[in-house]
Structures are given as structure tokens and as C-alpha cells.
């Protein structure tokens, strides 16, 4: 199981190295969103300091939509999706793809957070790293599940936004609060931890059903 999961993860990294699909779609998107948000909410430093943490997490949440198309998009385009489903156990497939998406989202969070820190002049509270790690894990589980769900059918691709954005609400809220100063840390840390645990377990449990055809 672990070997299979790592093999899937390595394969995802190789696919990304070859095509740069996630990088090319996500980085310009996040950079544009943060810069435009600064223009929209600024230029008062006070307003930017209030809206900065939320802007970074909103960028991460919205970035799940282009990232979700990379979950199974390459395999479907190359007609290797059926072979992969036949060769790899569902749990290992979920774990491997989850690791890949988590890596992508964590980098997205670092990029969005870094941009807001630099451009918006935000402080970096230490608990924000915990929120970033656990919040992106929860979003990665959602992205993996819903990415596979919509990959197998050509219809209603726009549903991804309707599914992913509302379901990621707790990560958005808790991540934003943990990235803000003068906020009670414990309740939000508990919320994001419980949310991530429940989402990862639920996505893992339903993943085999999503792989069926």
C-alpha cells in the first residue's frame, strides 16, 4: 500500500515536471488575485492588514478549482485512467494523489501568504503555519475527491466550483483566523484539525466508489 502510494505520488510529480500544468495554471492565477485584491481593498495599510489573511486563503481556496483538474486530467486525456485504476488499490491511489495535491496546495499557500506578507505588509504569526499545513491538507482531500468525481464525466465541469468552494469554508475561516493576530488560537486550531481529520477520512472512505465506472 505504502509503496503503491509513493509510486503514484512519484508519478504525479513526474507528470507535473513534464507538463508544469499545475504550476502554470496556479501561480499566475494566485499572483494576479493577490495583486488585484490589494488594489481593490487598498491602498490604506490598515485595510490591507485586515483583509490580507483572508485574501491569501481565498486565493488558496479558489486555486483548488484549477488544481482539481490535474487530479485525473492527464490520465483521462491519455486514456490511461482505466489502467491506473486497475493496477493501483484505491487507498494507495487516494494517498498518492492526496500527497501530490497537498504539495501543490501547500506551495500555493506559501506563495499567496508570501505575497500578502510582502505586498500587504502583514506580520507572520507562528500559528499561521499550522493553519496552512492542516488547512491545505483538508482542501487537498476535497480536491482529490471532487477532482476524480468530475474527471470521469464530460458534463457539468462547472460543478467543481459549486462543490469545492462551499465545502472548503471551514478551512478558509480557520486558516484566515490563524493567520491573523490578536485572535484566540486554540478554538481555530481545534476546528481546522477536526475538519481536516473528518474530511480526509470521509474522502478516503468514498474514494473507492468514485473510482468505479
Amino acid at each position, binding site marked *: 500500500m505504502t509503496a503503491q502510494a509513493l509510486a503514484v505520488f512519484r508519478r504525479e510529480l513526474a507528470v507535473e515536471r513534464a507538463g508544469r500544468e499545475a504550476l502554470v495554471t496556479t501561480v499566475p492565477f494566485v499572483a494576479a488575485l493577490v495583486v488585484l485584491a490589494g488594489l481593490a481593498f487598498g491602498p490604506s495599510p490598515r485595510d490591507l492588514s485586515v483583509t490580507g489573511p483572508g485574501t491569501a486563503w481565498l486565493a488558496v481556496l479558489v486555486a483548488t478549482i484549477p488544481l482539481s483538474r490535474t487530479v485525473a486530467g492527464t490520465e483521462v486525456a491519455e486514456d490511461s485512467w482505466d489502467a491506473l485504476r486497475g493496477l493501483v488499490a484505491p487507498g494507495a491511489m487516494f494517498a498518492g494523489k492526496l500527497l501530490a495535491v497537498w504539495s501543490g496546495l501547500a506551495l500555493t499557500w506559501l506563495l499567496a501568504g508570501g505575497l500578502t506578507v510582502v505586498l500587504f505588509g502583514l506580520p507572520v504569526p507562528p500559528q499561521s503555519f499550522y493553519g496552512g499545513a492542516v488547512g491545505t491538507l483538508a482542501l487537498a482531500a*476535497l480536491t482529490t*475527491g*471532487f477532482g476524480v*468525481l*468530475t474527471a*470521469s*464525466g464530460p*458534463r*457539468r465541469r462547472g*460543478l467543481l466550483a*459549486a*462543490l469545492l*468552494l*462551499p*465545502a472548503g*469554508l*471551514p478551512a478558509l*475561516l480557520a486558516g484566515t483566523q490563524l493567520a491573523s493576530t490578536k485572535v484566540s488560537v486554540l*478554538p481555530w486550531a481545534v*476546528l481546522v484539525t477536526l*475538519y481536516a481529520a*473528518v*474530511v480526509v477520512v*470521509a*474522502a478516503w*472512505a*468514498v474514494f473507492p*466508489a*468514485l473510482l*468505479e*465506472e
Partner: protein
Amino acid sequence: MPRPAPARADRLLRASAAVAVVAALVLGLVVAPPDAVQGQAQRLMYVHVPAAWLAYLTFTGVLVFSVAYLVTRNLKWDRRAQAAGELGVGMTALTLAEGSLWGRPVWGTWWVWDPRLVTTAVLLLVYLGYLSVRGLSDDRAAGARRAAAVGIIGFVDIPVVHFSVVWWRTLHQPATLLSPDPAPIDPRMLLALLVALVAFTLTGAVVYRRRLTMLAAADAAALAPVAVPEPAVPADDAPAVPLAVVPRSRP
């Protein structure tokens, strides 16, 4: 085709729902006094709270039935989940609309960025997505599987919605009945609210069972074998029929 007579349990359920609705109307509109602060607008709570309760109940049903479907792969569980999801979406929309109607005279605005309001609106979006997932493909079983997955994952937002007023403590008032330290309430108001809860639950059960019957009939019709008429064999001495070309699309 004649409709089958409703079972005795269904007739009893409908009668109970009708009685409860009439009682709730009388208690809510006549017996219960107007609120000392909010005035007549407070009576909207006799619809708002039961609608929210029924939404929670039906979304819990979606979770349970979705798990049951994924375990058994019996479409009856999927039909139950779908009927519950549709009812829940309707009740969530009603909750938001009622809350907005109440908020205008009491808060002075139709909408505020209150955590309870926002999370409830998000909940509505989650379950609209749940219903929309069924149309991803024409395969009935694939749609049921996908919907079950979304129904399970989507339930994660329910505790966030319910506890939002506890965590944030903003404009929306905390729970009156379920709070560990319940606020004092006039006994007539409490009675009207409890009867309205019963009326909504019974009426919801009637609607749910009716929708279940419709979904079962639709599934039965989809699975029924289609009778293919035997091709007519022309007699040897019949005149040859000229070949007609029918256009596949019309302007």
C-alpha cells in the same frame, strides 16, 4: 392508469400533519402573544426555526442514506437520500428567506454578513451541488455513487453551521431551546414553537414519502423492458414502398 390507494399509514400521516398544521397556525397566529421587543415579526420564528430543524434532519438523512447506499448498492437508499436532499434544500432556502423577512424589520436590513447566515447560505450551495452531481452522467448507478460521496463529504459543514453562533457570537441569537442556559420564553410561545416543529416534521414526512413514491415510479419506468414491435413483413405481392429520406434536424 389508476393511482393506488394510499396505505393506511400514509393516510394517518397526512391526517396528523393536517391537524398539526392547523394547530400550529392557531397557536402561532392567535394564542401566542407578540414579542415584547420584536412585535408581530417574531411570529416568523414559528416557521423559521422548524424549517431549519427540518433541514438539519433531512441532511442527516442524506448522510445516513448515502452511507447505506454505498454499503448495499440498493437504489432504494439513493432514492431516500435524493428525496431527503431535495426537501432539505427547500427547507434551507425557506429558512434563509424567512430569516431575511424577519431581519428587515428587526435588524433593519435584509442581509448581514453574520456567520450563521453565511454558513447557512453555503450549506444551501453544498446541497445544491449534491443534487446537481446526479446529472454528471446518464448512468443511474454512477450518479447515485457520486451523489452519495458528495452527501457524505458535504455533511461536514452541518456542525459548522450549527455551532457558528456559539463560536462567533455575533448578530444572530444563540439557540433558545437547545442552549445549556436557555433563555426565558413565554409558555404560549414555547407551545406554539413546539407544535410548529411537529407540524413541519409531519408535513415534511408527507412530502418526503410522496417524492419517494415518484422517484420509485421513475426508476421502475426507466428499468422496465421496452417492447419492441415486430417488424412488419411485407407480403410478396405488396407494392414496394419507396425509400423516404427523413432529415435528422429541422430548421
